[in-house]
């Protein structure tokens, strides 16, 4: 009966009930049970589980490395000489048939599309973000925010289809009506894709802006209001500058995400790598990196030069988005500062009043000195941000915090407030109040207009899909998939593809969700947030989400389809989508775990439970509804992924049964693929193909948005507040 491990455990299992009438009875009874044989088992279990969780977390976080390494290996044949690499990176003659692989224009095309998409999305995103954070009443925010977020749940292939059929036409006709044929002879140009991508990016920028502004200490804003500033002044002069770095980071992160987006550009823009109209002209046809990968992978010989070149493109795309995203994240965490840019625009910066140097020193010397000072300035590091960028500002529970915040922290914010206020105080006095009101109202109106436009566009998208797609919903054709011969006769059925989609995504969920949950539990409970190992694991998992989906598809195609020899099949597709699911599900799991305070676990520990028991019986159990909500959310995010499934599963198959026959070596018809294929057919060759594409889009939209909305509702329902 010692409290040490070596204690000999004499087992005596009590099967009959012992009467506990007096304290002595009870004492004897519990002492008998305090060193039963199960203790050793519990300890082993505790240790075993810990290692199991660790392996899962390591596996998940090594995924990015696997993918990168594999891409490098496959791309090696075209990287043997410096000349070859130079050609790939800087030449602009992309002609695979003649073995010319100059991919410079492909990268440039991607940059053009992305650049204009972001330029268009930024005013909308920031405007709506400000509106949500500062002006909308709490009640309407509760409706507006999820509505805006629904946009991000629309599968990109549907947006591509709509833009291809409608937006391109509208743009073309407008340009003809305005007599701008020379500028714009076709609608299938970069700007059309940019507009579509911008629409899809607005929710990301808006919600990150909203988070950043909501994270501004409320006393800061209140204090400036108390000094007589208008609401808008408080926002523009206090909150916005305070949240500046987070907003800039949001924009850069959005850039990193859009550049990997495949389907819209692939479907909307006519492929043309020439870029005749100059480098930054958006009114021309382009050929973007992801389009090249997704479009050309189908018809190449394994192992030839084009194969390697495509993997090189994948690698290039991966690195570009990784670098951009890393920069964005580091700005958010304060490791890279953009303050010096804004400072340089101020007069005082150059006049250097406080400087000790005399005027005789010369302008150049002062300039260089100033520069050196700005760049060597120490930037305070903020805390390591959590996995989920969207929600990182919301959580207040800090890992490892046992009790209340330290007083020191509070004092820091107060001091910060004081100094910032002093800076702004003088400004407020200058403006007169009527002028203030007018500016405030003007900005408010502009923001509401922006919001209205976005919601209008969302409604139009829904409207178009429903209007065009609803006619084919009934009667259900139980067997047919998009088989060409049947299509020519106008026959098609969506049911089989819907089932195929569910099966493939279900396979992905079956493998990916447990891994993510285990990894999330390990990251949240088992590693100290200050640990370097923890940072590596977290960043590893986070980085998966920055890999463009087409690159994941390329990896899946190389590994699962070809090397494992599974062919295009459910397994290959399931594993590929699993990779995409892991980062999302891991971060939703961590967010869910954060909702239950550590004190639950501590109370269990104080009763003598092992660490694993304290997690399993309490924190995990109480947060499980939220974790399941996260599952739904993750599934809704990958169900519309198109590029990866084009490469790994989807095929136009005709077979007499609704369900696929085999897990490997048989392609499956899936909704996103059907939308892509049917959408690009012409109605002359295949009657009704467009309306059938829209029917598929409607079903897919219902699946994706349905899961998303159910997830949102469940989330708000299960968000238990533990005091």
């Amino acid at each position, binding site marked *: 009966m010692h409290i040490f491990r070596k204690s000999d455990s004499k087992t005596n299992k009590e099967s009959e009930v012992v009467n506990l009438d007096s304290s002595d009875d*009870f004492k004897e009874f*519990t002492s008998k049970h*305090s060193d039963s044989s199960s203790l050793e088992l*519990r300890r082993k279990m505790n240790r075993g589980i810990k290692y199991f969780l660790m392996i899962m977390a390591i596996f998940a976080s090594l995924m990015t490395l696997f993918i990168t390494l594999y891409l490098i290996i496959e791309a090696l044949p075209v990287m043997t000489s410096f000349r070859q690499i130079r050609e790939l990176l800087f030449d602009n003659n992309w002609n695979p048939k003649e073995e010319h692989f100059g991919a410079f224009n492909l990268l440039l095309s991607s940059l053009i599309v992305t650049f204009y998409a972001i330029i268009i999305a930024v005013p909308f995103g920031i405007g709506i973000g400000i509106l949500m954070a500062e002006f909308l009443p709490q009640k309407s925010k509760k409706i507006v925010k999820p509505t805006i977020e629904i946009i991000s749940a629309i599968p990109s292939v549907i947006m591509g289809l709509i833009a291809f059929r409608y937006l391109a036409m509208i743009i073309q006709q407008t340009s003809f009506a305005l007599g701008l044929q020379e500028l714009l002879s076709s609608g299938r140009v970069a700007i059309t894709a940019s507009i579509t991508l911008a629409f899809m990016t607005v929710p990301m920028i808006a919600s990150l802006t909203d988070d950043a502004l909501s994270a501004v200490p409320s006393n800061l804003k209140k204090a400036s209001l108390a000094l007589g500033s208008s609401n808008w002044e408080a926002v523009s002069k206090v909150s916005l500058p305070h949240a500046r770095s987070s907003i800039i980071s949001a924009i850069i992160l959005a850039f990193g995400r859009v550049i990997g987006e495949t389907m819209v550009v692939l479907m909307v823009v006519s492929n043309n790598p020439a870029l005749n109209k100059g480098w930054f002209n958006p009114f021309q046809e382009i050929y973007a990196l992801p389009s090249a990968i997704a479009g050309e992978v189908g018809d190449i010989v394994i192992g030839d030069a084009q194969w390697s070149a495509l993997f090189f493109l994948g690698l290039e795309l991966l690195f570009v988005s990784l670098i951009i995203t890393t920069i964005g994240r580091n700005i958010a965490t304060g490791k890279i500062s953009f303050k010096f840019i804004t400072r340089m625009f101020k007069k005082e910066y150059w006049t250097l009043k406080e400087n000790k140097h005399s005027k005789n020193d010369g302008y150049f010397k002062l300039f260089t000195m100033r520069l050196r000072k700005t760049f060597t300035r120490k930037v305070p590091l903020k805390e390591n941000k959590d996995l989920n960028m969207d929600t990182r500002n919301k959580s207040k529970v800090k890992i*490892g915090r046992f009790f209340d915040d330290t007083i020191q922290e509070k004092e820091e914010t107060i001091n910060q407030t004081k100094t910032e206020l002093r800076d702004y105080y003088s400004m407020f006095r200058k403006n007169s109040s009527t002028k203030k009101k007018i500016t405030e109202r003007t900005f408010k109106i502009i923001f509401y207009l922006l919001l209205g436009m976005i919601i209008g566009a969302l409604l139009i998208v829904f409207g178009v899909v429903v209007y065009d797609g609803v006619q084919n919903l009934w009667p259900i054709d139980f067997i047919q998939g998009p088989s060409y011969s049947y299509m020519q006769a106008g026959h098609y059925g969506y049911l089989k593809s819907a089932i195929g989609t569910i099966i493939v995504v279900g396979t992905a969920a079956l493998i990916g969700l447990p891994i993510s949950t285990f990894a999330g539990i390990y990251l949240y409970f088992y590693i100290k947030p200050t640990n370097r190992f923890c940072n590596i694991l977290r960043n590893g998992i986070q980085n998966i989400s920055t890999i463009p989906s087409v690159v994941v598809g390329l990896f899946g195609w190389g590994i699962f389809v070809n090397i494992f020899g599974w062919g295009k099949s459910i397994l290959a597709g399931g594993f590929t989508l699993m990779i995409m699911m892991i980062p999302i599900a891991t971060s939703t799991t961590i967010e869910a775990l954060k909702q239950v305070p550590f004190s639950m676990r501590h109370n269990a520990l104080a*009763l003598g439970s092992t660490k694993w028991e304290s997690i399993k*019986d309490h924190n995990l159990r109480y947060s499980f509804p939220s974790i399941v909500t996260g599952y739904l959310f993750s599934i809704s995010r990958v169900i519309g992924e198109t590029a990866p499934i084009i490469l790994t599963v989807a095929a136009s198959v005709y077979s007499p049964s609704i369900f696929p026959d085999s897990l490997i070596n048989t392609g499956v018809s899936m909704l996103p693929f059907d939308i892509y294929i049917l959408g690009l057919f012409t109605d002359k060759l295949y009657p009704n193909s467009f309306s059938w594409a829209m029917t598929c889009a409607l079903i897919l939209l219902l699946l994706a948005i349905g899961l998303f909305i159910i997830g949102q509702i469940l989330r708000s329902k299960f968000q238990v507040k533990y005091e």
Partner: protein
Amino acid sequence: MSKEKKKMQISTKNRIKDNQNQKRDYKIPAEIAARVKNFNFYYGDLRAVKNVNLDIMKNKITALIGPSGCGKSTFLRSFNRMNDEIPGFKYEGEIIFDNRNIVSKTTDLIELRSKVGMVFQKPTPFPQSVRKNIAYGSKIRGIKNRKQLNQIVEFSLKRAGLWSEVNERLDDIATQLSGGQQQRLCIARTLSVWPEMILFDEPCASLDPISTNVIEDLLVDLAKDYTVIIATHSMHQAARISNKTAFMYMGELIEYNDTKKIFEKPDEQLTEDYITGRFG
């Protein structure tokens, strides 16, 4: 910068200084429940408990008093090693309990914690039924017999003086109970595994005066069977219920003596100042 970083890394490693010979016999007199020797505790570089020496008497109530941030909770949590949950902790010295040094690497925390129970400041019932709350400690120890579990629940609730209030609603969710009842539920939960020592960290801080009185009476009663250590801000509470009082200040143990002596004629000026409310 790099030096700082290195320092951080060293300090965040959890360490327990354990250079004593394991075979050494830690015999302490029978009337002493725990003996603290040259004990230090660090949060990273912050030394929160400084060189404390004292004896905790068996079946007595020992009160820890002192201004906020003086290290009462930290010291208290060392007795069942709950401090291990905080990143960057470090123990130094000895706490001898059950003839062993519990601040040692080889200590089995599961067994230690079933012998040294703890009740936290905020009542934290698990969001489950009252019955499940109490039975949890026994269930994880492998007791599955329902009748037996019910007996344990009944006994523990009776001992905590809660039985008459909740025996009709054993299957209600425990979070529906009043704050005072919740705290007594937490006490009953701790009693269900029969610890030898129970640690209370300001158990009445969030309760109304009546519930506080009930719990204070309960503590006096519990001291017949258990050794009790309580950290408290209330001088009245310490004076009313405790047998021994330790006054801590900035992590140091300033004075430790019989409660009567401390409150009537303390040896140290600092203690007197604190008790008479003469410092802020």
